């Protein structure tokens, strides 16, 4: 196991903050280290993807390419994650992920998650609950953006960073308790 439980929990409290070492261990054992060099492409927009990355060190840029233009939507650093959608539903990647610096991530594939759900359901339930909360939050932010002063569109593509996973979203929504 290339990372200890305490450090991983501290980096990703929303995903596994409530898991003790014994419960977190199967998740960490399911993951593989993914070191990266500056400039390395970790994920290609449109290419098949079935793995998420959990950033431990360094920084990666999330980019989207439209005809004639490539826009960096945001930079993810330690404690952020990306590509959780193909982790749940493998398919074409929505973005390029390119290392901005040297660094390292932990990688989890769809197959790893399926095995975790089968063999360690209690751990998988907590982890998946964190992913669900993140996805739900991203949808909430997106839905609220429609009807915002920018007319439902990000004022710039960079503003769309708020819809990417695992980021600390500016202006995070605090839902009204019922």
């Amino acid at each position, binding site marked *: 196991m290339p990372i200890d439980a305490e450090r991983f929990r501290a980096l990703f409290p929303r995903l596994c903050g409530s898991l003790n070492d014994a419960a977190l261990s199967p998740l960490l054992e399911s993951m593989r280290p993914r070191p990266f060099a500056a400039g390395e492409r970790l994920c290609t927009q449109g290419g098949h993807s079935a793995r998420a990355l959990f950033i431990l060190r360094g920084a990666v840029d999330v980019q989207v390419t439209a005809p004639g233009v490539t826009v960096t939507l945001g930079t993810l650093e330690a404690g952020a994650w990306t590509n959780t959608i193909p982790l749940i539903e493998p398919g074409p990647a929505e973005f390029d992920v390119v290392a901005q610096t040297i660094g390292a991530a932990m990688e989890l594939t769809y197959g790893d998650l399926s095995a975790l759900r089968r063999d360690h*359901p209690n751990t998988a339930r907590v982890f998946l609950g964190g992913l669900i909360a993140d996805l739900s939050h991203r949808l909430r932010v997106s839905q609220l953006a429609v009807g915002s002063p920018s007319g439902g569109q990000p004022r710039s593509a960079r503003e*769309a960073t708020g819809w990417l996973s695992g980021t600390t979203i500016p202006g995070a929504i605090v839902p009204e308790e019922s």
Partner: protein
Amino acid sequence: MLDSLLGSQWLFDDFSSREIAQIAGAMTERVVYNGEVLMLANERPDRLLVVLEGSVEVSKVEDGVDRVLALLGPGSLVGLVALLDRGRRAATCTARGKGRVAEMPRDAFDLLQQSNAPLADKFQYAVARQLAHDVKQMTRGLLSDALGE
């Protein structure tokens, strides 16, 4: 009838017939008609919908004009976000054409979220798949707008 309709939906493709029957037991099925408002923006969530037949339009008023955010077809879970974050509904959902939906009361949804039974784990994964699908569609639309495609 509800069992077979639920079992044929993509989100429930790995549920056994017994598990489908258990989920169906927590739901009620009904016919909906064109233009019927099924969920209203800003209201407190009291149920989850599964579209069984027909389609449901998700919209939000923007500068006095309805903007359609999505058109959801059979198999879609509708109304997840507010149930999960305990906020208010962010959008209005309206039946487009005659259709059929299944409704799960909030209590049953919460119970499934809190349970550690194998059925609850499968349902949790179905929720994750629906959200992943929704985020992908929403992100695609927003980026398309932002990039002027």
